[in-house]
């Protein structure tokens, strides 16, 4: 019997007490160890195991692992090492047998990766995690468990650092820590070896800054990194770690955003981006990350070289001006300088910046009140136009893409806009939508009528053969529809007509506007070079494509089988007719019809299916022919055979854009009907007619709809078209100067039902940290205030009767103000020399002289405009703290005789008063003051406007017009005053800016802005965070300064008793007053105004 067997026998019973499998494990291990250990050692080994098993209730599990691992471990550790190992294990098992078991179990695998000498360090690390509670024990067991995997990815010191992080997390959440540790092996395996250390560094930074983000980082980090150029990841992680140290909890979100935007950039740019970003990080880590975040957007606007210049500007703010906040705002694109620089560098032209110019240009050219809008606008209306990226028109307005970046030169891109506008204006100016059925053109006779008769006859004959009764066709809604009805292949006729008509408009434009010819040609050839490959098209489609190429002035780009040359020649010759002087839309239609007759005979088979049909370049043949209508006799060519493809019109050149004559005519007819239709075809359109038109029109893209949806879709189009027809045509801005909207029976009763019309304005906001404006930051919605009753107004007048009279009188006294010279007076303060001489002459001549020889300067007309801006924030809802109402027993406290009857009388009176008079709020005082000042101002005749403001957030600053500057005082204004009510926040800056805008538009010598408020400016997002007040105060101050620069005298009145502190800062050298006794506001306001206006 061997020693091993002896030992097995010896301990068998004891072991069996712990667990069924333990004896076997022991026996197997002992047997395996026997050859390598001396007997004594073997026994030591066994005893150590037994000790382990006995250590605690569940430590037998550790013992089992010990037995199982020993045979493997011995090779690595040798006899001596074994002792150390088991000591470590028993140390661990002192704390937790579970931990010890995990340690023992992992040891064999760990020893593959670690030298035995580091075993102790490894175990200590695990031990450190254990704090005695069961969660920490589980965590440290997990540590041992995942160690083999982890150590495959990183050396022990790195693992130690990871454990530091995990250890930190345990202070917050064991669950999170466990989670992170569990996922670590997979994560680090996924990260490239070189990046592991930086990854860990950043992880540590994240954990310190915002522990909860650690898990997110562990979960998503590797994937985010994967999108970044491999050799740049380390740099990125280093940067992120540096930034996080500085910005704290924002670190990870910034990293995530930056990674996301880097992912959208080409990998080869990552190096430069990160290098520049690191440069920024030295001065402002925030700016560095914002730079990365903005990069993709900037890249859409600028070339790489331009982008470098743009970035340098931002770096300069940081490095030369030492303004990190400014640089951050710059790179966040929330600074005016950033936008200006972008605009200056970018070749891209925004519609927004040239809209006004183009509108006036289009008006000049067309002579009509056309509006210029973004194409998106038309698409949104869902009336058949679906492309938002090209120019088009629906007959009354011109729609242009939101930006043009076709060329790399700004001026060239602007020229593109101009060509767009000119072509669309041309459609209006040269009558593309004025088609009249069967009227002759200048070069082509009218044949549409004939064709119609022929088709009708054919149909009757066909019906007769089929034996059905011929139904009369639905009458066409528009001449254009009637024309298109003559063709079976509607897309084909529309395609051809579009080419011909656009050719005509281009030719007319080039003739009429010599100066634009060059840009037009430039764009034409640009388009001609970017046509789709003709080889992939069916023959019929190729035919139309060829017409289009020729119409772009590039007949050399025409590709056509020589065998069918004649068809093409005839088509091109007819196309040339449209370019002749004097050609009208009638010509275009007749030419299109003639070409259609050729094209419809060409099967839409693909070129390859045709035997010898190569697309040939026939430039010579196609450039020399004279304009002519097709003879209609070119019929004898054998047509190629093959499978027909679906016909689809080739794409429109961008500068011509969508052409939908049928819809435009329909729309204009519907508009005429709406306006009372005094036109000849004023007959109402039936729904049947409309549906018929929409259903058949090739101008609508209805292929994607199933039969059921189609009904719905058409119904919706119809609704939208009707709405459209109701809308006023032309440029809405023209109405702005008009006195009133056309009276469409817009009575008071209707008004309530109408949705409030809101006009939106955008204003910059001042970011004092960046020392720059945030461009178009706040959106102010101007609306006419709601109306209430007139009771409030009248009641206030009654209540303050005396005060009203007094202020009126005072105001009337200040009436004469500015100087006007009065001549020919009998008395005055200055002598008119001419008149004096004349007087002398007359006296000598002996004719009755008139001694009117004096001039006088008189204060006669006042020219003052004042805008009152009322704070309508929620806080104005607060009740006014009345001085404690006490019984004062008549006139004097001292007279109080203690007579209870007197006291009860007083009490009853007070109650009665309180019942009739609800407690007064700040807003009530604002309203009362308004009433008083209105009365006073009416007496003096100054122009005045009353506005209220409130809102929530920068997107929704509400601006209520109670009385506009140029509005007459009326009952309605009184009603509106009644409706002044507390709403939400106080974003003062934008409200002030909008008031400045209003005053600017108004002509007056003296302009005053009076802001009545109850406290400091504040709003959601009106500052860096919720508690920050500086931003709001600075922005308001800036807005007030802007007012001064515009020649407006701003003045602030606040009822906030604590107002002095921020007002001093906000108002600097701007006048303000804190009305201590809130109730004196109605009395105070007129007095203040008098002083202001008299200055």
């Amino acid at each position, binding site marked *: 019997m061997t020693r091993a067997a002896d030992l097995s026998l010896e301990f068998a019973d004891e072991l069996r007490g712990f667990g069924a499998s333990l004896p076997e494990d022991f026996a197997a291990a002992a047997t395996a160890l026997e050859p390598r250990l001396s007997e004594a050692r073997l026994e030591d080994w066994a005893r150590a195991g037994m000790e382990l098993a006995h250590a605690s209730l569940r430590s037998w599990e550790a013992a089992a692992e010990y037995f199982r691992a020993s045979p493997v471990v011995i090779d690595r550790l040798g006899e001596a090492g074994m002792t150390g190992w088991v000591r470590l294990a028993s140390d661990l098992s002192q704390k937790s047998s579970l931990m010890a078991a995990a340690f023992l179990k992992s040891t064999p695998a760990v020893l593959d990766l670690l030298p035995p000498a580091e075993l102790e360090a490894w175990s200590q690390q695990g031990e450190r995690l254990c704090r005695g509670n069961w969660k920490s024990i589980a965590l440290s067991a997990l540590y041992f468990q995942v160690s083999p995997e982890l150590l495959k990815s990183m050396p022990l010191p790195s693992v130690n650092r990871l454990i530091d992080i995990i250890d930190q997390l345990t202070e917050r959440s064991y669950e999170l820590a466990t989670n992170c540790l569990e996922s670590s092996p997979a994560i680090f395996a996924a990260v490239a070896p070189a990046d592991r250390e930086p990854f860990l560094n950043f992880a540590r930074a994240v954990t310190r800054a915002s522990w909860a983000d650690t898990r997110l980082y562990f979960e998503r980090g590797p994937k985010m990194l994967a999108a970044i150029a491999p050799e740049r990841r380390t740099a990125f992680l280093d940067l992120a770690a540096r930034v996080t140290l500085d910005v704290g909890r924002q670190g990870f979100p910034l990293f995530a955003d930056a990674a996301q935007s880097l992912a959208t950039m080409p990998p080869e740019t990552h190096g430069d981006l990160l290098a520049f970003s690191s440069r920024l990080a030295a001065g402002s880590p925030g700016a560095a990350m914002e730079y990365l975040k903005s990069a993709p957007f900037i890249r859409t606007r600028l070339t790489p070289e331009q982008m470098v210049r743009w970035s340098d500007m931002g770096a300069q703010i940081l490095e030369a001006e030492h303004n990190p906040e400014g640089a951050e705002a710059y790179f966040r694109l929330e600074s005016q300088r950033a936008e200006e620089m972008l605009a200056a560098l970018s070749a891209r032209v925004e519609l927004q910046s040239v809209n006004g110019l183009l509108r006036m240009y289009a008006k*000049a*050219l067309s002579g009509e009140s056309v509006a210029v809008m973004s194409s998106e606008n038309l698409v949104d209306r869902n009336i058949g136009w679906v492309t938002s990226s090209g120019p088009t028109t629906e007959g009354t307005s011109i729609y242009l893409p939101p930006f043009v970046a076709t060329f790399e030169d700004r001026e060239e891109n602007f020229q593109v806009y101009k060509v767009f506008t000119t072509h669309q204006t041309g459609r209006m100016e040269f009558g593309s939508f004025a088609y009249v059925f069967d009227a002759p053109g200048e070069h082509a006779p009218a044949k549409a009528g004939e064709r119609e008769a022929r088709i009708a006859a054919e149909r009757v004959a066909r019906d007769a053969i089929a034996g059905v009764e011929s139904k009369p066709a639905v009458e066409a809604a528009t001449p254009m529809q009637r024309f298109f009805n003559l063709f079976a292949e509607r897309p084909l006729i529309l395609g051809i007509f579009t080419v011909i008509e656009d050719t005509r408009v281009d030719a007319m434009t080039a003739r009429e506007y010599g100066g634009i010819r060059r840009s037009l040609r430039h764009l034409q050839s640009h388009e001609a070079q970017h046509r789709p490959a003709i080889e992939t098209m069916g023959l019929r489609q190729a035919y139309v494509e060829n017409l289009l190429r020729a119409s772009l002035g590039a007949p050399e780009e025409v590709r056509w089988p020589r065998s069918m040359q004649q068809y093409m020649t005839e088509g091109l010759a007819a196309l040339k007719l449209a370019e002749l002087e004097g050609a009208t839309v009638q010509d275009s239609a007749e030419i299109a019809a003639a070409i259609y007759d050729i094209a419809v005979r060409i099967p839409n088979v693909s070129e390859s299916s045709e035997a010898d049909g190569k697309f040939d370049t026939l430039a010579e043949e196609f450039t020399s022919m004279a304009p002519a209508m097709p003879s209609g006799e070119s019929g004898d060519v054998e047509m190629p055979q093959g499978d027909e493809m679906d016909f689809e019109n080739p794409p429109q050149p961008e500068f011509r854009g969508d052409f939908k004559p049928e819809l435009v005519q329909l729309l204009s007819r519907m508009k005429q009907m709406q306006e009372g239709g005094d036109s000849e075809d004023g007959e109402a359109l039936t729904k049947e007619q409309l549906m018929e038109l929409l259903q058949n029109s090739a101008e609508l893209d209805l292929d994607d709809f199933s039969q059921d949806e189609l009904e719905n879709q058409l119904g919706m189009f119809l609704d939208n078209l009707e709405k459209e027809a109701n809308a006023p045509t032309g440029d809405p801005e023209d109405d702005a100067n008009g006195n009133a909207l056309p009276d469409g029976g817009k009575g008071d009763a209707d008004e309530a039902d109408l949705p409030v019309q809101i006009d939106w304005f955008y204003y910059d906001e001042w970011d004092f940290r960046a020392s720059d404006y945030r461009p178009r930051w706040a959106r102010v919605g101007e609306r006419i205030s709601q109306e209430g009753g007139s009771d409030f107004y009248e009641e206030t007048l009654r209540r303050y009767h005396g005060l009203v009279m007094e202020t009126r009188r005072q105001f009337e006294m200040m009436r004469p103000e500015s100087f006007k010279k009065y001549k020919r007076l009998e008395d005055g303060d200055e002598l008119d020399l001419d008149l004096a001489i004349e007087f002398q002459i007359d006296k000598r001549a002996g004719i009755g002289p008139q001694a009117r020889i004096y001039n006088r300067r008189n204060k006669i007309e006042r020219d003052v405009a004042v805008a009152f801006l009322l704070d309508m924030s929620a806080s104005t809802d607060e009740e006014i703290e009345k001085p404690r109402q006490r019984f004062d027993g008549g006139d004097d406290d001292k007279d109080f005789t203690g007579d209870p009857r007197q006291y009860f009388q007083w009490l009853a009176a007070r109650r009665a008063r309180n019942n009739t008079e609800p407690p007064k709020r700040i807003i009530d005082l604002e309203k009362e003051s308004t009433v008083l000042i209105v009365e006073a101002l009416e007496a003096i005749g100054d122009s005045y406007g009353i506005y209220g403001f409130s809102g929530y957030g920068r997107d929704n600053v509400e601006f209520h017009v109670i009385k506009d500057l140029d509005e007459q005082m009326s009952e309605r204004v009184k009603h509106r005053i009644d409706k002044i009510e507390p709403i939400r926040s106080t974003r003062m800056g934008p409200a002030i800016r909008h008031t400045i805008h209003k005053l600017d538009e108004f002509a007056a010598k003296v302009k005053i802005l009076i802001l009545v408020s109850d406290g400091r400016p504040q709003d959601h997002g009106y500052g860096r965070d919720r508690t920050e007040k500086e931003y709001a105060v600075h922005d308001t101050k800036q807005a007030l300064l802007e007012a001064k620069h515009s020649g407006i005298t701003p003045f602030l009145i606040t009822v906030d008793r604590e107002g002095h502190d921020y007002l001093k800062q906000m108002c600097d050298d701007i006048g303000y007053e804190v009305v201590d006794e809130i109730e004196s506001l109605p009395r105070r306001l007129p007095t203040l105004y008098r002083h202001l206006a008299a200055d």
Partner: protein
Amino acid sequence: MTTGAAGFQQIAVEDFRITEEPFYLPINDEVELFETAYRDKIPVLLKGPTGAGKTRFVEYMSWRLHNREGRGHEEGVPLITVACHEDLTASDLVGRYLLEGDATKWIDGPIARAVKNGAICYLDEIVEARKDTTVLIHPLTDYRRLLPVEKRGELLEAADGFLLVMSYNPGYQSALKDLKHSTRQRFIAIEFTYPPRDQEAVIIERESGCTADAAMELAKLAEKVRNLKEHGLGEGVSTRLLVYAGKLIAAGIAPRRACQVAIVWALTDDLEVQRSIEEVVASIFE
């Protein structure tokens, strides 16, 4: 007529005659109307925007009428033009006493001279004159044809050829500067508008000496710019400005530049409107 040392001519207003035919291209029936009015002694009001040819028309009619009357130019009835302004007094029009040594001397004002000489008296921009001044002409404009000279206590009866012609521009008509009805209802009104493109081109070509093509482009430009009236421009571009532009072009100045100085900048100070018009110019001229 006296000739000054520096070569300038100095003539009395009543001696001013149009001796050479001024260029005037009749647009409508205005010539016929004016002749009839002159014959029947009906005062004429010329309405229309600035630079549309009102003054030129009066000059042309004055020349033409002399011819038709068969009188030699030397004896013909002259044209007396008064540019009205807000300080224009009755004495300025009728006449006044002047000191001469120790004595006084009466000097006739332009209206008095016209009345005596049977001239056409042309009051340019009449709305600019003070309202009390305009009332002065009332007796002259009805059947009486009398001019009271208050200071001398006289009444002047108009000579045969006398005709009162006034012009005014309803464009910058404001409530303050409108003709009183008692005044305006004493005249027949001939309306002047800018000529159609083709005719305006003829005028420009003739007046400026530029090529027919350039004249046509200018006329086209004018048409487009006039579309902007009320949409940023208070007044359309006048034929006079077009002629100036034509002259610059004829002298060899690049058309775009010529239009910029003679039309765009002359018309407006609004930068956006300027740019818009410049773009129209750029579209028309190569």
